[in-house]
Structure formats: structure tokens, C-alpha cells
């Protein structure tokens, strides 16, 4: 069943700077499951942040990173959903457009690299789901997380545009993260705006509108009775975790809703401690929520 358990890890810009809790927990969970994540050497931005300004430069950036993975001879594993979509889209574009490939390779030649098909890119959560599978992951668990009522946020680019993702999940009725969360024993709470965007991409354009979009989801989640949120993208975490206080201030409301990355949740079930999972770095404190799962410090 297992095709390969070694991957080239593409961290992107945001995770090493603002998502070290995500990175830490993903590395721990990967090691526990026997996935070897090999850091991609000298990688640069995936191109996503400059797509709106300059699509052709964005494509060159993506192709450069893909060419690095090709040189390593490994499939790419991403943690950020925006990186996932930028790199996957580039693969699709370059594989069907010979012209684009030529243009890109002219630039890459200056760095001694070449984009060549095939390069496969998948999000960490998708690899967990497809390559290991919920049942096999569950065998590694020591704790039952049934006190948790989790609202899952898929975010946009983990699933969309669907045409680049080989139908691994369903945009209108997604299931993969539901499956990975429910094996921990946590209750998955459905809520009204489950498919809504986090608003993150327009934070540098219009902060108030971005925060208003994020607020809608926090309102829906709290109304549905969840006591925590689970997600798989550092941009989404910036909106719901780092900016939760700002949203509370701006709109005179209060949530106090802890936001966990998927591998943090899986890691708690596996028996890792707080520090190993970077839980001390989550902005909304998780101590009360998780008090039952850790020894008193």
C-alpha cells in the first residue's frame, strides 16, 4: 500500500516565522508514523503571495521549488494550504503547457535547474489520509480526546481549485479532515459556515474586512457549541488564533476559542507533551481545554 515514506518538506515563508507550533507538531507526528520529511534545501517563496501582482513571476518561483524537489528525487509535502495550491497549480499548468515550461526553464537554467515532469505535491494532511490512513494512525494513539468538541476549518486552498487535486476530497462536502479528527475520539461539530474562507489574503489590503470575514466563522463555531477549532494552514491560524483578540476588540465580542493545528491534535492523542507539540506557542491559551490530557506542570 505504501508507495513512499520519504518526502521533500516544503515549509514556505509563513511556517518558520509564524507557525513553529505547526512545524514542530507535524515533524513529531510524521516521525511517529514513519514518514521521513527531508528539508528542501535553499527553497524560496512558493509564489502564492505575488500571484495577484504578477502571475508569471509566481510561476517561476513555484517551478524553482518543484525543480529542487525533482533534484532530490522526492514527492513534495507541504504544510501550508496556500503553498500547496501554488505548487500544485504550477505542476498542472507546466505539465500541459509546453510554452510556459520553456519560458520557466529559461529562468531556471540561470540557477542550474530544470523543471521536469513528474513532480507530485501533496498537503501533509492529504498524505496522512491517503498514504497512512485513519485506521493505521489510530493504532498510535494512547489518549482518547472525547472531551473535545472540534469545529474543523478546511480553508480554501487545501481543497480548491478542485480540478488540480485529483478528487481526493469533495469541495462541497469534505471528509478527509473529519476522518482524521474523529479517530482521536473528539466530537466533530458541524457549523453553518464550515466552507467559508478565513479572509487572510486581504489582510494587507483591508484589515477590517478581513477580520469581519474571520468573525463570521468564529460566531458560527461558538453558536454550534464547539470548544476548539482545528485547521491545517498557517494563514488561517493567523486569522483565527493570532488575530482572535483583535477581532474581539474590533467587534466588542468574546470567544476565547483555542485553535489547534491538526498534528497538534493527533500528537496529543499520541501522547506527546505540550512542549513537543508547541502548544505553548498557540496564542489563545489551550491549558484549560487540555487540562485533562496532560500531567499537572
Amino acid at each position, binding site marked *: 500500500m505504501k508507495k513512499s515514506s520519504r518526502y521533500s518538506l516544503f*515549509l514556505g*515563508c*509563513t511556517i*518558520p*516565522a*509564524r507557525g*513553529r507550533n505547526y*512545524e*514542530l507538531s507535524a*515533524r513529531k507526528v510524521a516521525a511517529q508514523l514513519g514518514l521521513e520529511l527531508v*528539508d528542501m*534545501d*535553499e*527553497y*524560496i*517563496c512558493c*509564489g502564492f*503571495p*505575488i*500571484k*495577484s*501582482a*504578477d*502571475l508569471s*513571476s509566481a510561476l*517561476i*518561483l513555484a517551478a*524553482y521549488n518543484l525543480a529542487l524537489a525533482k533534484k532530490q528525487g522526492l514527492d513534495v509535502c507541504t504544510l501550508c494550504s496556500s503553498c500547496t495550491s501554488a505548487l500544485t497549480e504550477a505542476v498542472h499548468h507546466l505539465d500541459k503547457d509546453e510554452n510556459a515550461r520553456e519560458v520557466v526553464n529559461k*529562468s*531556471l537554467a*540561470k*540557477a542550474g535547474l530544470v523543471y521536469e515532469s513528474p513532480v507530485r505535491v501533496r498537503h501533509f494532511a492529504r498524505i496522512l489520509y491517503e498514504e497512512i490512513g485513519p485506521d493505521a494512525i489510530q493504532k498510535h494513539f494512547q489518549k482518547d480526546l472525547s472531551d473535545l468538541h472540534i469545529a474543523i476549518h478546511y480553508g*480554501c*486552498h487545501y481543497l*480548491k*481549485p*478542485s480540478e488540480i487535486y485529483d478528487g481526493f476530497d469533495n*469541495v*462541497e462536502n469534505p471528509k478527509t479532515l473529519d476522518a482524521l479528527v474523529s479517530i482521536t475520539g473528539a466530537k466533530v461539530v458541524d457549523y453553518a459556515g464550515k*466552507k*467559508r*474562507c478565513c*479572509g*487572510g*489574503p*486581504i489582510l*494587507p*489590503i*483591508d484589515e477590517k*474586512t478581513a477580520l*469581519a*470575514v474571520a468573525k*463570521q466563522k468564529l460566531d458560527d463555531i461558538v453558536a454550534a457549541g464547539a470548544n476548539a477549532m482545528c485547521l491545517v494552514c498557517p494563514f488561517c491560524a493567523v486569522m483565527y488564533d493570532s488575530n482572535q483578540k483583535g477581532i474581539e476588540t474590533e467587534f466588542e465580542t468574546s470567544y476565547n476559542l483555542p485553535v489547534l493545528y491538526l498534528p497538534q491534535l493527533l500528537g496529543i492523542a499520541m501522547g506527546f507533551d505540550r*512542549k*513537543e507539540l*508547541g502548544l505553548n506557542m498557540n496564542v489563545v491559551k489551550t491549558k484549560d481545554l487540555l487540562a485533562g490530557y496532560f500531567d499537572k506542570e
Partner: protein
Amino acid sequence: MPDIDLGKTDPNFMRELTKRPGGERISACLTCQTCVASCPITEVNGTFNPARIIRMTLYGLREEVLGGDFIWLCTSCYACQERCPQGVRITEFMTQLKNMAVEAGYIPSGVKAQLDLVTGQGRIYPIDDFDNKKRNKIDLPSLPTSCDVVEKIFPKEG
């Protein structure tokens, strides 16, 4: 978003757009409003309306569209594109509009800052030795600090 003024139309605008990937099918739009009902921005700001942006483009309102702040409110979430019954690639169309706006000299400062960072130093948040020390302390491996390769793939003009 401004009222539509048919006095200032430019038929080349739509023709240019339909040549760009993502813009091909905009004239197939039936104004069914499915995109509008799916849009997370319209939900919080009723003046933002993707179907209306398509209409304005079809009418050839180049300056109003490219010079307007509203195109930058699109988050590229693909909610609209996934659901359009006419196969209009709305999200990609919006991205093309933003690219054309930049080519015409309209670029919001936040977008400009990101573009300069990425094409100039390779990453939005570069990593230095100090960052690596902090990483090692919490049991994370050091990451390469150099992104010099951007100078090779994006040579400075002039």
C-alpha cells in the same frame, strides 16, 4: 463600487481579458448570482459583487475596474468558481484583473511590499542565524538562510 457609466467604454478591454487564461468564458455569464451568493466578501460588504465586476468588464469599463479598490478585496477563495453553472473561471478572472491593474500602474502598497520582498530577497520572512538559534532551542533543525538564487532567476534590471 461605482455606477456603470456607459459613456466610457473600451471594447478592447474585454478582448484582452478573454485572451488571458481564466478570462476566456466571461461572456458566458448569465448573471445568475450564484457567485455573489457564495462570496465571503459580499457577505460582509454588500458593495462587493463578482457578477457586477464581470458585467463592468463586458461593458468595457477599463478604468473603473482596474483603478477601483474593489478588485483587491477578492480573497481568491474559489467559492464562486467552483459553483458557476456556466464554467466562468471567476477567481482566475479576478487574478487577471489584478495583474492587469498592476501592469497599468495600480498596485496597493501591501501588495507592492510583498512583491518587492519576494522578488528581492526570495521570501516574505527571511531566516537569519538568530532565527536558526531560536529554532534549535525548541528542537527544530536549522534552515538555509540564503535565497541568493532569486538574483539569478530575477536579474535586476538596469
